[in-house]
């Protein structure tokens, strides 16, 4: 039995990447198998692109960056082991983490090992707390999305609002905060329905919603379920406007619900039309990954790219790879991100990045900025 484990250990060391000594080792824990595989691939694309650009420009103070990838198979227990491997490969910092359940499980490893960990793929508010020391998060959390959506609802004068949410922590989180936001405006949802992530048929929920005759339906969930809901809702004659958070701002929506998703509104972390850099970056990104087996998705790859290129790289250049200095540099970081309304972004005391969200709308086969919502 013992020789088995020894051989296993040897093999793993080999696979950990043939990085030369003075390279900067960037680790990433993402799902390359299981349900989140497509999201993991987009994050890796964002990191790869930033990495190549930095290395092409001579690296950071002459040191090249290498990427050490750990696949957590979209499973919380395995994501603990995956992040532990990155710590064990003594990577200098980790950018990654998709799925709230996975991050809630694996961030303890980063906190314990003292590893700077920038989360770019999970939005549950409970990830960033005052106890966070090493774990940062660049995505606006669900509170931000729900609050922004409540503003849009009042902006567009929707009165009869229905909610359908996924019973996972993403959906439940959004439902609670949004309902609170509505209450502040003195509005109560006309109907609230729930579904399981793996559900395929939503006849029962949509029949309830149809009866409430809403003028807006909030979709708090992820693909492919919310696309199926939109299709089945239109089939059942519900013509209310659809609104959603980051789960909806995914380019795959246009493929899965071409007609039903028209004019659906979504909050997002990136939009091409906000500024010139975003447009130029998106073009470079699309061109770079045109042949990749995972179709390029700017909205999913941008946060990872910006975390490395705009936040980690400057700090690495400034303080090198000393973990504590790196942490303090990140904590003090402030700057503007492209693809979002222009505003000064910085980390709060729970290491949550305070940055604006963009509000976009599906028009044809693209996301367009929702007029009047992105001042």
């Amino acid at each position, binding site marked *: 039995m013992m020789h088995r484990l020894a051989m296993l250990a040897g093999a793993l060391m080999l696979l950990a990447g043939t990085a030369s000594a003075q390279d900067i080792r960037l680790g990433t824990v993402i799902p390359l198998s299981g349900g989140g595989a497509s999201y993991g691939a987009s994050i890796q694309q964002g990191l790869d692109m930033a990495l190549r650009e930095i290395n092409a420009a001579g690296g950071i103070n002459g040191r090249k960056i290498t990427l050490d990838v750990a696949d957590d198979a979209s499973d919380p227990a395995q994501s603990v082991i995956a992040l532990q491997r990155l710590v064990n490969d003594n990577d200098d910092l980790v950018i990654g983490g998709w799925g709230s359940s996975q991050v809630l499980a694996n961030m303890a490893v980063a906190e314990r090992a003292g590893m700077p960990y920038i989360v770019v793929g999970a939005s549950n508010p409970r990830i960033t707390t005052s106890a966070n020391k090493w774990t940062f998060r660049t995505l606006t959390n669900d509170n931000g999305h729900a609050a922004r959506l409540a503003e849009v609802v009042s902006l567009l004068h929707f009165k009869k609002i229905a909610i359908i949410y996924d019973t996972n922590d993403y959906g439940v989180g959004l439902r609670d905060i949004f309902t609170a936001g509505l209450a502040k405006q003195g509005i109560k949802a006309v109907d609230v329905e729930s579904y399981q992530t793996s559900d395929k048929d939503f006849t029962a929920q949509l029949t309830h919603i149809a009866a409430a005759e809403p003028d807006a339906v909030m979709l708090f969930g992820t693909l492919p379920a919310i696309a199926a809901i939109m299709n089945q809702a239109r089939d*059942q004659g519900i013509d209310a406007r659809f609104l959603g958070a980051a789960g909806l701002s995914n380019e795959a929506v246009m493929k899965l619900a071409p007609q039903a998703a028209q004019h659906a509104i979504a909050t997002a972390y990136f939009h091409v039309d906000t500024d010139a850099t975003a447009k130029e970056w998106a073009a470079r990104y699309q061109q770079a990954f045109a042949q990749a087996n995972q179709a390029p998705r700017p909205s999913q790859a941008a946060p990872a790219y910006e975390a490395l290129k705009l936040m980690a790289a400057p700090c690495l250049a400034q303080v090198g790879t000393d973990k504590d200095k790196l942490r303090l540099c990140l904590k003090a970081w402030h700057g503007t991100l492209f693809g979002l309304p222009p505003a000064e972004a910085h980390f709060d005391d729970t290491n949550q990045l305070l940055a604006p969200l963009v509000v976009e709308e599906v028009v044809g086969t693209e996301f367009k900025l929702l007029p009047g919502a992105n001042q």
Partner: protein
Amino acid sequence: MLAQLLVGGLGTGCIYALVGLGFTLVYRTMRMVNFAQGQVFMAGTFLGLFGAQQFGLPALPLLLLVAVISFAVGMLLERVVFRRLYASHEVFVVGAIGLGVMIENGFRIVYPEPLPFPKIFGAGVYHLHGAVFQKTYLWILIVTLVLVAALHVMFAYTRTGRALRAVASDGEIAATMGVNVQRAIGATFGLSFAIAAVAGVLIGPLYFVSPDLGDMVGLKAFSAAVLGGINSVVGTILGGLALGLMEALAAFYISTDYKDLLAFAILVLMLLVRPQGLLGRVVPVKV
């Protein structure tokens, strides 16, 4: 309102019935349960997607093509894999689950993301006093009826049908009467694969095509087969329809959270109260 639920429930019920038939056919012949049935259903959907997109096949030829290919794959897998798993229930169950894991993750490599299925059964919807439903539902009902009738005719009147029934009642005796038992068993697996794959194609336009499509449908169809009577074809079909309708009504009137609970509560209760199912025969245990 009620009509909407009934149509939805009936549609899902037909799918549970067809996939459930796959369990019944294999169980009747081999007293084994093929837990990879859900994944076969999913593979059928992908096969249909491939046929529709690459070759632009219209509905009927596509269904036939998928049925024929799946039948062949079913017979092949019986010869290569399942035939070596008859040692015991446990070995068969675990082997079948392993096969299901292989099929599902194999497809996940090729198709990592959910894909839309072309509306080969007609785009648009029908209106039936208040209820609105996709044209696909009509195809599901028709094809299910056709399949059930065809099965009945085959089992009752054709030579292979009688051979399959003989093997189902007792393999040894059937062998002594000149029935090629191995081929009959292969045909049974082929048939169960074909029916499940056809059900997969039928469901395509309603749902998106993704590798995990078959997991829940497989378990629900299994509960339906147990509800109706896993050794009775008619029982399984009625069990499937009943479960589909009950789920639709429970989701609407009780709660969508516990919708799935219903199917599994039925499964456990039926096994305790009437393991042979509503219509199944009691299989006497010889001492």
